[in-house]
């Protein structure tokens, strides 16, 4: 490779790194600056760090509650998906039964179903079930919308479980569920980890469902809270920045800490 080619390549890598990071940096900067010097001075970090914005948003604007709600919803959705999708993935990957192709195609079709296209009917159904303004009314549909992806990914993961392992256990006379829990689950732990992380990420990011289902302020998650803050506190830029940071920092930290697992999950559905 010539020197100029390499230089050009490095420049390209750098430009895109800046594209990715500068907006994040700006939010961070706005969040830790006081109102007075928000628009003054260059784009350097100010010292000492000013936590006033976080305090105000956390306690006065209700972000402690929004945060807790995001945690509750995202964790519930994740647990629900982890309890259901791996079983289905295993059935599709390793078991033989009539109707397998059709049922799998049914899940596959759901991979692309947009939440806004079912909301018209879903909303009425939730109303009839008394689940409007209820956490269950977000958790169940959210898990259901993530199910096609999760089942698809779990099928890919389960295909890698050696058949000999399963056959040996079957000969021992182990029940299928016992076999699944004691033999299969330990082998696919990394896959389950990836699924859990990705489900958590998507559930935390969800906006439309909680927007239409929740009416009570004390049930709303961060995404809805941050969006409404924009209207209510139109000029409190430091506050909105702090709110944004609260809404995405946990995800960024989680991703950086678990990068390997995330990437494995994202590519599991894609490469095969």
């Amino acid at each position, binding site marked *: 490779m010539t020197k100029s080619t390499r230089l050009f390549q490095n420049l390209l890598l750098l430009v895109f790194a800046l594209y990715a990071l500068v907006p994040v940096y700006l939010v961070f900067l706005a969040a830790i600056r006081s109102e007075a010097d928000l628009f003054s001075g260059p784009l350097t970090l100010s010292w000492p760090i000013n936590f006033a914005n976080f305090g105000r948003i956390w306690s006065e604007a209700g972000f402690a509650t929004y945060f807790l709600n995001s945690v509750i919803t995202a964790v519930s959705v994740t647990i629900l998906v982890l309890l259901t999708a791996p079983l289905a993935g295993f059935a599709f990957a390793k078991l033989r039964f009539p109707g397998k192709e059709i049922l799998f195609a049914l899940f596959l079709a759901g991979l692309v179903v947009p939440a806004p296209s*079912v909301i018209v009917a879903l909303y009425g159904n939730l109303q009839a079930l008394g689940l409007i303004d209820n956490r269950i009314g977000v958790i169940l549909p959210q898990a259901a919308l993530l199910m096609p992806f999760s089942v698809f990914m779990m099928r890919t993961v389960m295909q890698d479980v050696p058949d000999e392992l399963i056959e040996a256990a079957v000969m021992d006379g182990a029940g299928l569920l016992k076999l699944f829990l004691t033999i299969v689950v330990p082998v696919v732990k990394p896959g389950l980890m990836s699924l859990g992380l990705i489900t958590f990420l998507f559930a935390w990011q969800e906006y439309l469902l909680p927007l239409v289902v929740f009416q009570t302020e004390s049930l709303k998650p961060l995404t809805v809270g941050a969006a409404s803050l924009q209207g209510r506190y139109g000029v409190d830029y430091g506050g909105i920045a702090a709110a944004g940071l609260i809404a995405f920092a946990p995800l960024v930290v989680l991703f950086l800490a678990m990068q390997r697992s995330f990437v494995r999950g994202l590519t599991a559905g894609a490469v095969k």
Partner: protein
Amino acid sequence: MLTTRSAYLFLLPSLTLYLLFVGLPILQVFGFSFFAWDNGIAGDFIGLANYGRLLGDSVFWTALWHNAIWVVLTLAFPLLAGLVIAAILADRNANVVRWLGAIYFIPRTIPLVVAGIIWGWIYNPIFGLLNFGLEAVGLGGLAGAWLAQESTALLSLNVVGAWTFFGFCVIIYLAAIQSIDPALYEAASIDGASWWRKFRDLTVPLLRGSTLFLGLYAAIEAMRFFDLVWVTTQGGPGYATEVLTTHIYKTFFLVGDFGYAATLSVVLLIIVLAISAGAFTLLRKP
């Protein structure tokens, strides 16, 4: 047989959840679309009359056009950028790959609602960083109210969409490149092939599967995205950023026209299913 029954039991929880909260509503929106609705109550069966309204609904056609533009822009920019970056990164050492890969992916972890708020500032006509930057380098004449004028609103939003998406493309492409047999590249190097030639004649053709996957993903996302528009422009100014999902949302929640909102939902469903059916057919071909 025992395993048959167990298989159905294994499927039962996820299938129930899926059919109840996704399958059933899909059938319902199909049904809803054939009726006239009054205040949330189904009235007369009117056949395809709601579908006939689509023809005269200029907002629908504008929205559809914007979705189409969004598909093309996403294929043209983040996908291509992801491919080139991944190909460059593949030659670098593991630490660089890990760090840059993480950096590129960070925007994808940010909820689109928050991304919309962040970029709303950058585009702000009075104190936004974009105008500030343009003035600083002497291009103040180009400064504008990016999200508030019809000519730039959709394109400006697409830059935000690309911001959250290109890192995903990098990661998918990178994983695919790393699974290519290195002997192919070594052979090409021995033949004296340049970086560009290896990229064009080896990397791009071998990544066809990933490109199809990402293309499908991008097209589906382009049809169904909602959060970003809703939190920034709500489809405005005028109808400059109206897309199918915002049109559905407004028709249902603001106008309260259940039948027509269901009709729009059916159109959206048919489009995404048609796109994915097309992509799967392509994927099946060797």
